[in-house]
């Protein structure tokens, strides 16, 4: 009996041990590697993921998303909703309450004035704030007391969590940035490199595009965190090298975004120094079908709604293109555990994911051939189908990227099996995704028949993402080729659903609408989804507390990281 008690005591002591050790700075140093080096620590001046994530160690929003995509209060006491009275019944005002006793890393108190300032900073004229969309429709931010900020929107906002939520819209210190408004924003180098924050770490030295040295924030709200006294965020190199540094040599504790071939990653993980973690968000690799004619002979009216595409306007052709693709094989070759086949352009969060289109998961070349035969597209002597003198011959473009070129080659092969001829083209990513209206090669102009790329949306609410395929979002010369409706899809029913969603507050209704829109796009085959791409990172076996989050910064819970 005594022995048993002693054993229980010993076990309990072991179990308690990490608690006893949990003291700020007790675990020494943590090394993080980002193979793309952060250039600045102010997410308002850079839309880049690397900068957002590095900055999230230092500055924080009022609320953010957890690993399941659910919103959690961060600097705020709770997430305001209509039920708890935080959001007004007409959906135009949101009342945020800061946690009491919050301090900036310099020891001064965090007030609602800082919240208001963050909005003013991002919306100041001439500042070129990368996150200004987060503050769309905000007409005022009032501060009735030091801990309360009331955000008023000019329109009713069914999803009012743009401002101050997520890594993109953190709270910055008014005292520090007061002289950095608008056009002066880029001149504040010291401020942009070392913002004063509320997060677990503060910057001790920032070397742009190289390395960031950080130390524990002495005024962090939880006295026992962070467990690490200092941190280094090294940038540069390649995904392979950073994977190697964590998984094979153990020099680093955490490696971000390891876009590597599945077998390369598996070989590295076999060294046993660390583990690969993956999680899925909303990033979908897809093929956009051009419903307009990209024929250069049309001059300025090329790829505009005035000239329908000669054969891609036939739904049978679009459907056959989708049916001929083996998505599981694409996943296996390109992404391994970091991808999964999908039949939806809106694959997550779970409440928005439709199951109505899952038939596409199975490749059906015979079915595709039958559909084309039935639609009157007959194979010619060269094996290419044609009807009324129109041959099924397409130009298929994408950005230059090893995986994408593999995908192109595979898909070209499958399409040739259904009698569709494909010419492949790849364009440097900085040109393809650049929005130079003078360049003919941007993904918006889509001077090709089909194109492939990946896209996703911030946070968990798909409203603005689904609104991408409204008629008016079609890029054309009239809007300098801006907009995300690459297929130039135009359906009154779809636009009605978009309008309905903009005024619907109830979550279940919103989910129903989002699913309906997704199904409409899928069943019209104007977007051919291929792979739901996950995020893959790696951490060393000695680093505990890592929770990979695709909905917010990967470093969102760095305060909880500890040495094991």
């Amino acid at each position, binding site marked *: 009996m005594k022995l048993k008690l002693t054993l229980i005591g010993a076990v309990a002591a072991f179990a308690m041990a990490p608690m006893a050790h949990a003291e700020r700075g007790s675990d020494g140093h943590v090394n993080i590697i980002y193979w793309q080096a952060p250039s600045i620590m102010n997410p308002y001046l850079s839309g880049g993921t690397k900068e957002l994530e590095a900055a999230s160690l230092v500055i924080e929003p009022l609320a953010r998303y957890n690993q399941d995509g659910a919103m959690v209060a961060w600097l705020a006491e709770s997430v305001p909703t209509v039920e708890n009275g935080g959001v007004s019944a007409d959906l135009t005002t949101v009342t945020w309450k800061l946690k009491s006793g919050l301090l900036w890393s310099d020891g001064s108190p965090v007030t609602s004035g800082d919240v208001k300032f963050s909005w003013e900073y991002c919306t100041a004229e001439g500042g*070129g704030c990368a996150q200004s969309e987060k503050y769309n429709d905000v007409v005022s931010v009032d501060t009735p007391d030091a801990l309360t900020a009331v955000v008023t929107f000019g329109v009713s906002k069914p999803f009012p969590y743009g401002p101050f939520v997520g890594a993109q819209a953190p709270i910055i210190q008014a005292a520090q940035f007061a002289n950095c408004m608008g056009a002066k924003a880029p001149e504040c180098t010291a401020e942009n490199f070392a913002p004063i924050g509320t997060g677990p770490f503060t910057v001790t030295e920032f070397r742009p595009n190289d390395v960031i040295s950080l130390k524990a924030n002495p005024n962090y709200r939880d006295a026992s965190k962070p467990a690490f006294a200092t941190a280094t965020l090294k940038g540069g190199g390649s995904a392979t090298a950073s994977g190697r540094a964590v998984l094979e040599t153990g020099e680093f504790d955490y490696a971000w975004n390891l876009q590597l071939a599945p077998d390369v990653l598996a070989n590295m993980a076999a060294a046993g120094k660390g583990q690969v973690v993956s999680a899925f968000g909303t990033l979908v690799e897809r093929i956009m079908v051009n419903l307009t004619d990209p024929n250069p002979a049309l001059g300025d009216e090329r790829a505009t709604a005035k000239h329908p595409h000669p054969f891609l306007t036939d739904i049978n052709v679009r459907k056959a293109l989708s049916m001929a693709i083996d998505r599981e094989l694409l996943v296996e070759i390109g992404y391994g555990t970091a991808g999964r086949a999908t039949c939806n352009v809106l694959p997550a969060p779970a409440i928005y994911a439709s199951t109505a289109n899952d038939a596409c998961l199975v490749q059906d070349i015979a079915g595709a051939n039958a559909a084309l035969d039935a639609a009157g597209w007959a194979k010619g002597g060269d094996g290419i189908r044609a009807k009324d003198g129109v041959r099924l011959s397409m130009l298929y473009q994408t950005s230059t990227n090893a995986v994408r070129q593999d995908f192109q080659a595979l898909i070209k092969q499958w399409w040739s099996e259904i009698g569709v001829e494909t010419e492949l083209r790849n364009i440097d990513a900085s040109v393809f995704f650049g*929005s130079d209206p003078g360049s003919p090669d941007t993904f918006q102009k889509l001077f090709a028949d089909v194109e492939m790329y990946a896209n996703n949306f911030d946070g968990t609410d798909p409203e603005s993402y689904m609104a991408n395929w409204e008629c008016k979002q079609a890029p054309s010369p009239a809007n300098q080729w801006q907009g995300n409706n690459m297929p130039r899809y135009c359906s009154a029913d779809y636009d009605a659903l978009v309008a309905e969603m903009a005024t619907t507050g109830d979550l279940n209704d919103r989910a129903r609408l989002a699913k309906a829109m997704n199904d409409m796009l899928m069943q019209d085959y104007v977007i051919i989804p291929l792979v739901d791409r996950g995020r893959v990172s790696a951490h060393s076996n000695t680093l505990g507390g890592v929770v990979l989050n695709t909905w917010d910064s990967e470093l969102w819970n760095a305060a909880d990281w500890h040495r094991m």
Partner: protein
Amino acid sequence: MLNFTIRRLLMAIPTLLFIGLIIFLLLELAPGDPMAQVPLTVPPEVKEKMREALGLGEPTHIRFWKWLVQFFVVEPMYFLDNHFGTALAEGKQRVISWQTRSPVMDIVAQRIPQTLWVVGMSYVIGVLIALPIGIISAYRQYSWFDQVGTFISMIGFSVPTFFTGVLLIVIFSVMLGWFPSIYDTTLVVNSWSTFVMQVKQMVMPVFVLALYNAAQISRFMRASMLDNLNQDYVRTARAKGLSENVVVLVHVLRNSMIPVITVIALGVPQVFGGAIITEQVFKVNGLGQLLITAIYANDIPMVQTLTFIFAVLIVLFNLVADILYGILDPRIRYD
């Protein structure tokens, strides 16, 4: 000689201005968009605002003029201010990087130490190894030493640094664990242990680059020595009864150095240009890595400034090579 130097320096001014213009126009005409790396979730209107904030809305000639003023007037003023505590550049706009929104020259200054340590050291070591190898290989042509030297320099020449670099990392970092695979630019050498760490992290990148440099220079040295060893003056020197050491190391070497000096001098600007690939492989993050990331991000002020600095160095070291000819060969006179 002084006249010649001054004349050449004056002539360099229009040359450099022209080079600056060419670089600017090339960057201007090249496709690409500094906002291309911004995620697709950022809407185009916002990107347009960001572009305007970078000053991209202005016409080309005005932006070139602004860059000239910033680079040739404001930056030197800043330099003077820093050293003499004056306030010449107060409130004036410096050359600002689009990626970091901070002055380009500050980042360049931050990057120079690691580039000079790693790339510079590898150049010095490469030259120190190459000269004796070249001399002995030529003097004992077709001996086993010459054969081995030729074999190693062929390897140095033909195997790319991204292969040797990764090979070394796999052997010495992954398998043996002797050296770090990632260079720590924040390491401050202030004690014996930090010095050892600095040496450890420099070993692999310096070896890779030194092998490459030594291969190149030793071949030049060998060829140049072979040209001279069969000349009449060498026979004369031997006939006069001079010792073999004096014949080879004084008479032949001095004459053989003339073409080799050109190669060495013209290689120095490349040291400042960094070693893009090796720096990437070992994460040294020097000037080479700075240039390549700036090119990827379409950070035009950064690319323009860096390439222009390299152009200045190339012009300068061409001049240095010409002056060294005069010193090595008294027959060459420019005045």
